């Protein structure tokens, strides 16, 4: 009796393939950057990051890469930047859990910029 049948091998492969794919970062065009400075974390950026990451995984959006950066002060944190070749750079402010859900489903999945969450970037000099 064979220990592993062909279909069981396929099962392992498709399950593990998904995990391995997450490590392959070549050719991903949509970048999401969450500002995770001290003030950002204080404003709830950790929850924002986790929400976005979980949603991206749930929806199986394979071309999205999520990274973190330092503080985005003095903007209304948590701040999330989304860059894609189609929409260019878009910055969102005050991104709570609810807003994070919307950014993933509307912008990342459907390609529509979430206008009411969008902010203009202020640099420290201003």
């Amino acid at each position: 009796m064979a220990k592993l049948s062909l279909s069981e091998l396929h099962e392992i492969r498709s399950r593990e393939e998904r995990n391995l794919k997450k490590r392959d970062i070549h050719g991903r065009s949509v970048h999401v950057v969450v500002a995770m400075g001290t003030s950002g974390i204080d404003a709830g950026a950790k929850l924002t990051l986790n929400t976005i990451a979980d949603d991206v995984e749930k929806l199986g959006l394979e071309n999205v890469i999520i990274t973190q950066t330092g503080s985005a002060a003095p903007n209304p944190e948590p701040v999330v930047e989304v860059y894609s070749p189609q929409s260019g750079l878009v910055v969102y402010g005050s991104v709570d859990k609810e807003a994070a859900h919307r950014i993933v489903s509307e912008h990342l999945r459907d390609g529509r910029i979430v206008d009411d969450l969008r902010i203009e970037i202020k640099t420290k000099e201003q």
Partner: protein
Amino acid sequence: MGFRNYILVCGGTGCESSRSDQIYHALIDEAEAQGVADQVQVIKTGCFGFCEQGPIVKILPEDSFYVQVKPEDAKELIAEHVIKGREVTRLLYNKAPRKAYEEVEDIGFYKKQQRIVLRNCGSIDPENIDEYIAAVGYKALEKVLFEMTPDDVIAELKTAGLRGRGGAGFPTWMKWNFTKQENNPVKYVVCNADEGDPGAYMDRSTLEGDPHSVLEAMTICGKTVGAHQGFIYIRAEYPLAIHRLEVAMKQAREYGLLGKDILGSGFDYDIEIRLGAGAFVCGEETALLQSIEGHRGMPKPRPPFPASKGLWGKPTVINNVETWANVAQIINNGGEWFASIGTPDSHGTKVFALTGKICNSGLVEVPMGTTLREIVYDIGGGIAHGKKFKAVQTGGPSGGVITEENLDTPIDFGGLQKIGSMMGSGGMIVMDEDDCIVDVAKFYLNFTVDESCGKCAPCRIGGKSLCNILEKITQGKGEEKDIEQIQQIAHAMRIGSLCALGQTAPNPVLSSLRYFPEEYEAHIVDKKCPSGKCKKLISYEINPSKCIGCTACARKCPVGAISGEVKHPHKINGNVCIKCGVCKETCKFSAIEIH
């Protein structure tokens, strides 16, 4: 919840010797201590290849390439990179953080490389069979067991044009076909992992980083030629590779990918490991088979070839590690895909261990046809310490030197042979202006003389005689007739030796004679060593116009050969000097010269 960051830590022998194992555990402990254990996965992978900069740690998804990491850095990597999302610039290879939104781009060392054999090295955990399966592992075996006939497999290998990577470049499909055609119920499959060239570690890294690729290929071969037992012959001084192989075999057996009735196909196949004691000659296939059988590792005359009469007299396919590592890829992607890579003479890629006087030493895999210049300068980053390039030795002790004029020769089996060297297993040792070509030839000859099994006279006596002549030349006792004698002995060894060890042993001498005749002449006629390596032919002298009489050299000289008064130029007594070079290293005014 999924992981946010993946930390890949190099688990090759090179990096492990610089404490990468401690780095791996420190990262896991720190992630735990700082409360992010559920967000990061730390994975120990095979060799990244960029050994010069090891230990290497790569963090995804940022693709941050951290080099020369120490276990003490784990805390900062977790606190800064993982928690705050800030790259630790001081540890980055290019010392500058990646610009956001930029497409991930490979660093220079990897740009011209194409990884087929090393495809999984540095990206998967070699001790986890699931990761290999995810990386299209065991799919080729599936195909061979259920969809292809043995003839299909051989036809695919023929289309691919895969040639043996152990050095000689014999077509792999022919070997398999010979064994397949033998009418014998017992046949064997052997993996030659007895890598012995000085400076070569391609096979070790492949086995350490991706052991399943070899197991899968050997099983495919078993099914194709009708064998049910495989052996991996590996030297005992590769403990990590052996460990990874043992883990891989255990996991494969648990899944039934080795053993009885593989995947319900009815095909039985298993593999055993045989340890070699490190004799170089056991890399020669007939000697290797003798050693597996428990005899002293000595070559036998061929024919009969192992394909018809090999292990215990049974038909045996024997291939090198790198050859095996190509097989599953060819079955998965098709022979035509493989044939489209490389040159008409040699298809696919070749892995080289780039070492010596080079900036980026490490493991590189390039398509056949890449020029040596690209490997040395674009990938290798040129000669270390701003010195001048002199030559590259390819093919180890069986190969020869390649000089500046041939740097643009595309590397393939035929191309290297034409310029008097050979592909060999893939060692590539770079020499600079400070290396003496006669000394290098002597080094390789000493190696083959040491490793000769002594069975046949041409190799045993010829090698020793050549060695004596070279010794004489480097001692300043060379005569003009020596060159002619070298040619004669070399010729006799080539035609008279039993195996490739003796047949190719004179190559380093012949090729260096061909490209650097003036250097031999300088040794023999002028009694000078132009690169200042051969101690008997040089003398250390102090240039009185540069010496300020600081006495630093005199105090350092271990034999008290330097004398002189303070603030007056010193002198070296040539009769006492042992030419250790300490004075030259000590002098801050470059006053000490080699003549």
